[in-house]
């Protein structure tokens, strides 16, 4: 075979194999939409479940997931930004920094059920918060930290060094430099990271299992110290724990969850693309 033909063959092969990556995601979406779209209607989205969850809607679980996502953002945002600023701007090349980085890498590799047990031990029992939105938000917040810190750090580091140098040379303090010249330019990237982290948190089941999620609780929570239903756990429950559950309900729930996570990823992508286009340096 000539070099030229070998070249064509290899390009063809890697392209073919690469498209295989796309197939599962497309199939999952088609499958879930095909089976679930029939269940989606106004009542499904706005009513509480009835008749052992076999009828009615998913409103408490949907809102529960929205509350948890907000809670997670409130926990994760300040912690992650502080950690990212430390790592990107202040951390020297020392033991502490290496340990912090190692910790973040390993946090990202911890199975989510372990986060759930940690949340149970630390927030529910030790801090005595009970199974509650706040305990769940804290647990999910910790879970999202690695991805949010990493993306935020990257965003901060991508701000050109010359902005810092100039700012310092003008008599600005380190903090003023970060506050006025670094963070404003890093913010779109940081927000992208937060949304990606929240997208992951919104879909997690194991971390909320012991910390917040209610099996069946048709009323909405009254405070952050109440339990709530949540979409991923609700989906698990109606798929495995309820006999004679109509299939369309399960797929409808899955579809709503999928749409929430996808739309968050989409928003993150739009922000990032927009930022890249507007970036002037």
């Amino acid at each position: 075979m000539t070099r030229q033909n070998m070249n064509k063959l290899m390009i063809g092969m890697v392209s073919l194999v690469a498209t295989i990556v796309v197939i599962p995601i497309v199939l999952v979406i088609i499958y879930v939409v095909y089976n679930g779209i029939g269940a989606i209607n106004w009542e499904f989205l706005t009513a509480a479940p009835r008749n052992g969850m076999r009828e009615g809607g998913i409103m408490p679980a949907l809102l529960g997931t929205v509350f948890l996502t907000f809670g997670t953002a409130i926990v994760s945002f300040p912690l992650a930004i502080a950690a990212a600023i430390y790592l990107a701007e202040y951390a020297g090349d020392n033991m502490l920094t290496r340990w912090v980085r190692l910790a973040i890498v390993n946090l990202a590799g911890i199975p989510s059920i372990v986060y759930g047990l940690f949340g149970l031990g630390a927030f529910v029992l030790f801090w005595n918060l009970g199974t509650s939105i706040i305990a769940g938000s804290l647990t999910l917040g910790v879970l999202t930290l690695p991805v949010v810190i990493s993306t935020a750090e990257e965003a901060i580091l991508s701000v050109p060094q010359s902005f810092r140098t100039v700012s310092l040379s003008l008599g600005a303090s380190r903090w003023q430099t970060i506050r006025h010249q670094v963070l404003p330019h890093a913010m779109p990237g940081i927000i992208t990271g937060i949304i990606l982290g929240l997208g992951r948190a919104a879909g997690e089941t194991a971390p909320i299992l012991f910390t917040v999620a209610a099996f069946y609780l048709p009323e909405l929570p009254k405070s952050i110290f109440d339990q709530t239903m949540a979409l991923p756990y609700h989906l698990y429950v109606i798929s495995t724990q309820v006999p004679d559950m109509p299939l369309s309900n399960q797929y409808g729930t899955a579809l709503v969850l999928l749409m929430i996570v996808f739309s968050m990823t989409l928003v993150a992508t739009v922000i990032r693309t927009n930022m890249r286009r507007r970036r002037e340096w």
Partner: protein
Amino acid sequence: MNNKIDVRNFNFYYGDFQALDNINLAIREKQITALIGPSGCGKSTFLRSLNRMNDEIASARAEGEVLLDGKNIYADGVDVVELRQHIGMVFQRPNPFPQSIYDNVAFGPRVLGQARKNTLDDIVVQSLQDAALWDEVEHRLHNSALDLNPGQQQRLCIARAIAVKPDVILMDEPCSALDPVATLSVEDLMHRLAETYTIVIVTHNMQQAARASHYTAFFWLGKLIEFQETRKLFMSPQEELTESYISGRRG
């Protein structure tokens, strides 16, 4: 004539590498002092020692004294942030912030606590006039600074530096990214600024040093070889090394 900056027995290290070796040099007030020498000779390191920008490099270490108005800027307890308000800096590449022309100039005064709009307006106008840029930008103060051409951007950077009213302006090869016309306009500007400010300029360009400075210091391998009035240094250098460098036989 007063010495604005007095450098005494100054050594500077990056880790184990000695970048500056026992420098003694006096910089006269309201004069332009040029630092020349081949790449890596320590002239930029020396410049950055004068406002302690080298502090930002982790492995860097300084020995000796740099007296600014008689006070050692390397003494314990010196506030580096405050020091830099007195010593402004202009960099090699024009590097305005990606903000409006107005916000670029107002940045320094703002971080120093100036919040009154009228005062800020006055400072911005005055600084742009002093940097010979006002006529070109007066109708577009709120446009992005990145829309200016490189020469204008560099003058904006000078305006930004003088907006905090420093005594000394350090310039690190300020014209190396500019075309000859823009270079001349910056040199003209330097001469006018020298009526008010003490200027230290690093340059690769010996014609520029000869044209635009009152004093010239020649650095070679981390040592100060010769320091003279510019005219003397170029017409009758005392050191053989200086002579062979400025005549192009070395470097």
